[in-house]
């Protein structure tokens, strides 16, 4: 196989691996832009992955699974919202609590109900998001250069992957070109001003938190019903936190979020493929080093290249009307 084809396949794998990060990072973007920090992305994603796989397995329908995933994730988002917005609790504590809750509850319920050590039964194909072959992909595969790009990179992903890319554009439009987006940003920067203008800070923040829940639901459903075919305890494996890093990395902007997530996905895909690869002049590099590579690069990039990341000014602070 030529270098070019290998590279295309590497990018293909990058797209698959970065999708859960992208959904979760966009989820965090809405929430944090409105001034509600959310380190519970991981937990919401995990709970959604479980719900999607469990309902998908029971109902045998991918859409019911997706809906269940979103519903559970929104439910947890509302808990977070209630704690942070209405009860004015500490946003970090609430987020951590949601992570613990999700990790424990999914394993417990899964174990009690399916008796497979917390795993859910394997999903039939009807209950999964399967790759979609674009028209003409097979025929065009032999066209040099463009053929492989079209066949491997553009065609052959599942619906959620395409939705993920669309969501980046939608998010950009919503945040920067709509009245809702303007208010959302304002509520995260200076809630008192928004309040003075006669807009409810509480309502704005609840809306943001609900959107965050929906997107985390998509991330979770992607993990368990598109990327794999069952739920496994702790399958989110820290992706929620990496998404959070990507969000900070991208300075809370939708298009840079896409790049950051693709970068993390790329490093992950590279780590998988470089194992056992003989570098010219160096020889085989130990697995441990290859697998640490994404983290090393992240630290280097974070420390050296992106400059200062400024969070929304009112982030993490519950809004209290002056009395």
């Amino acid at each position, binding site marked *: *196989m030529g270098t070019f084809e*290998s590279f295309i*396949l590497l990018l*293909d*794998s990058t797209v*698959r*691996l970065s999708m859960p990060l992208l959904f979760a990072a966009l989820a965090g973007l809405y929430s944090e832009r409105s001034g509600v920090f959310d380190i519970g992305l991981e937990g919401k994603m995990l709970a959604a992955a479980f719900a999607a796989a469990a309902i998908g397995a029971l109902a045998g329908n991918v859409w019911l699974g997706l809906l269940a995933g979103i519903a559970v994730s929104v439910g947890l988002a509302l808990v977070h919202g209630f704690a942070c917005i209405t009860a004015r609790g500490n946003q970090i504590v609430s987020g951590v609590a949601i992570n613990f809750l999700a990790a424990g509850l999914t394993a417990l319920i899964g174990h009690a109900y399916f*008796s*497979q*050590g*917390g*795993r859910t039964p*394997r999903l039939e194909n009807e209950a999964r998001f399967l790759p979609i072959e674009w028209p003409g992909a097979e025929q065009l595969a032999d066209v040099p250069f463009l053929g492989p790009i079209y066949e491997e990179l553009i065609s052959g992903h599942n619906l959620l992957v395409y939705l993920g890319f669309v969501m980046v554009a939608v998010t950009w439009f919503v945040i920067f070109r709509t009245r809702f987006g303007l208010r959302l940003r304002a509520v995260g920067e200076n809630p008192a001003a928004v309040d003075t203008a006669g807009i409810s800070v509480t309502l704005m923040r609840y809306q943001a938190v609900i959107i965050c829940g929906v997107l985390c639901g998509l991330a979770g459903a992607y*993990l368990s019903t598109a*990327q*794999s*075919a*069952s739920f*496994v*305890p*702790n*399958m989110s*494996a820290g992706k929620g936190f990496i998404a959070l890093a990507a969000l900070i990395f991208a300075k809370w902007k939708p298009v840079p979020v896409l790049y950051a997530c693709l970068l993390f996905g790329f490093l992950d*895909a590279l780590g*998988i*493929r470089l*194992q*056992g690869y003989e570098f010219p002049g160096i020889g085989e590099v130990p*697995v*441990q080093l290859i*697998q640490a590579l994404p983290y090393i690069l992240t630290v280097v990039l974070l420390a050296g290249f992106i400059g200062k990341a400024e969070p929304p000014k009112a982030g993490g602070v519950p809004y209290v009307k002056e009395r």
Partner: protein
Amino acid sequence: MIKTFLATAALGALLTVPAVAQDTNPAVVYDLGGRFDESFNQAAYTGAEAFMAETGVEYADFEIQNDSQREQALRNFARRGHDPIIAIGFSHGSAVETVSQEFPDTRFAIVDMVVDQPNVRSIVFKDHEGSYLVGVLAALASESDTVGFVGGMDIPLIRRFACGYAEGVLSVNPEADVLSAMTGTTGAAWNDPVRGGEITQSHVSAGADVVFHAAGGTGIGVLQAAADAGILGIGVDSNQNGLQPGSVLTSMLKRVDVAVQDAFTDAMNDEWTNGFEVLGLAEGGVDWALDDNNRGLITPEMEAAVAAAREAIIAGEVVVHDYMADNTCPATDG
């Protein structure tokens, strides 16, 4: 008629079981991944269940959730008078070492690890021999002359699988490419089907059309990805042929079930032995799986070839290299 039979059976049970139950009160501690991982731990569970079905003696078991529970679980069982106590998995090594000294009168066993204590039976398998056999099958089934291996955590035990497999593949087709990748370097690598699937896809795109996994719960993702890509997977530890019927070429059986059942039975019959127990092909400790799910995939030639390899290993004509003996793998290093 049936009533009399049942009554007799019940009477028989009443007469025999209590006498036995007093001295045997076995317990199992599973490794991370849990009792129903459809792989390594489940094999142990199957063995314990078989023992219970046969003798009527109940057993206790525990699924650890994190590393710190290993010692606690073993100690709790020992304190409650369970005997023998079997720890499943090499990660229990230091815990068994510690607890077996605290309870010198309790009999312990550990699978996949050697613990040198007077009251411990160490059960190790010749994984390389079983891997060699599935390697032979993989090489014969492969049309692209490229096969893959997905390991769980990067430890010598798993490299032993990889090495035996590569040796088996190359014995049939010296020109074949054996791709090999490990899922990770921590315990999480046993339970990451998403990553397992992604590694499998990378093998598929590099041309592999048979992929063998030795990765516990991660392997579920490997077999899934293999089935999705229309290539063949090979299961491990338990018979995984039924996980993706028609897409699993075979499974390398590691008879942890037999080892567990034997250990319990030996304890019950006062035939318990401490020390080493090495189970290879000759002892029936490892093998390959053939059942209705994969019969269509195994041609008579393949069956003959693997039977020949099996005989040769048992007779000692073929010695499969054990990676753990010297931490090298001549099949892939050379």
